[in-house]
């Protein structure tokens, strides 16, 4: 089982992901540059955070047209696990692999701190290692993390349990509702209808190594690894050959 972490010009969490997945959690991990036209042998794709193309035009708008992206799309369409973190979430939305969009934080400020997330759906390939309703502490660091979509999309996401992570605190004077960026329904992370593409603004990879504090984010990658192992064992879903 191998994770591929994609680096775009301006990605700055690619090595954090590499470290968390490889050195801390012990899973095989490879770096893929955005100019490559093949993902190579891998079982999960990580689109990391950062400021791809300097966030010019819109966060994620230019990265969606990078040479590697058609391969990511093919991989996702074949059922491969894809996780987009922060700028990666923005890229997945821009690419149409996830619904909605991420716009400027309600406060207009870049927010970099720890938040509390409630795990709303533990029945996914990304969250099976958490308890239903578990609250986890994970950092955020973004200026454009306000999740928006039309009413129908939001209602659909809620009805289908596709809001996987929701902001739940801490409650502060400047964020009395615990929602740090003004996202609709305090949405922090969503999954596609098929359940193989997840996007979230918080950084689980920054909460894996005990050296830097909490390890609540590790469950995301452990869940992915477990899902991949199960797939191979049961043959329920063929791992896409690319």
């Amino acid at each position, binding site marked *: 089982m191998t994770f591929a972490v994609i680096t775009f010009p301006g990605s700055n969490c690619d090595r954090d992901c590499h470290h968390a997945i490889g050195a801390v959690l012990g899973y095989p991990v490879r770096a893929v540059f955005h100019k490559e036209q093949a993902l190579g042998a891998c079982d999960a794709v990580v689109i990391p955070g950062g400021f791809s193309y300097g966030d010019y035009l*819109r966060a994620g*708008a230019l990265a969606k047209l990078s040479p590697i992206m058609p391969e990511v799309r093919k991989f996702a369409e074949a059922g491969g696990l894809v996780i987009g973190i922060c700028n990666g979430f923005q890229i997945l*939305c821009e690419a149409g692999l996830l*619904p909605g*969009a991420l716009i*400027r934080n309600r406060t*207009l400020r870049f927010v970099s701190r720890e938040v509390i997330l409630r795990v709303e759906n533990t029945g996914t390939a990304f969250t099976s290692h958490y308890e239903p309703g578990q609250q986890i502490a994970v950092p955020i660091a973004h200026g454009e993390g*306000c999740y928006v979509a039309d009413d129908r999309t939001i209602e659909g996401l809620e009805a289908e349990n596709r809001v996987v992570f929701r902001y739940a605190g801490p409650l502060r004077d400047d964020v009395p509702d615990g929602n740090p960026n003004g996202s609709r329904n305090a949405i922090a992370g969503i999954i596609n209808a098929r359940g193989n593409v997840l996007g979230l603004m918080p950084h689980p990879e920054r909460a894996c190594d005990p050296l830097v504090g909490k390890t609540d984010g590790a469950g995301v990658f452990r869940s992915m690894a477990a899902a991949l192992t199960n797939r191979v064992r049961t043959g329920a879903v063929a791992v896409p050959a690319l």
Partner: protein
Amino acid sequence: MKARVYVTYKPGVLDPQGQTVCQFLQNHGQSKVRDVRIGKFIEFDLEDMPPAEAESVLTEISGSLLANPVIETFRVEVP
């Protein structure tokens, strides 16, 4: 030839930047300002071509890249 594209938030999409500017203006005596929405203005220098063709080229670029159809609309202006 010069041509222009305007990209703006769809009605109903939260524009905190516009709201902040609006509030600032109202707080500074511009009581006639009701609302402010901030968008993007993009100027192109294109090879000379018939206006209809320029419009079609820019509509393609705008729909696929310059504007995100989930939150934005655009208008192409060809002289």
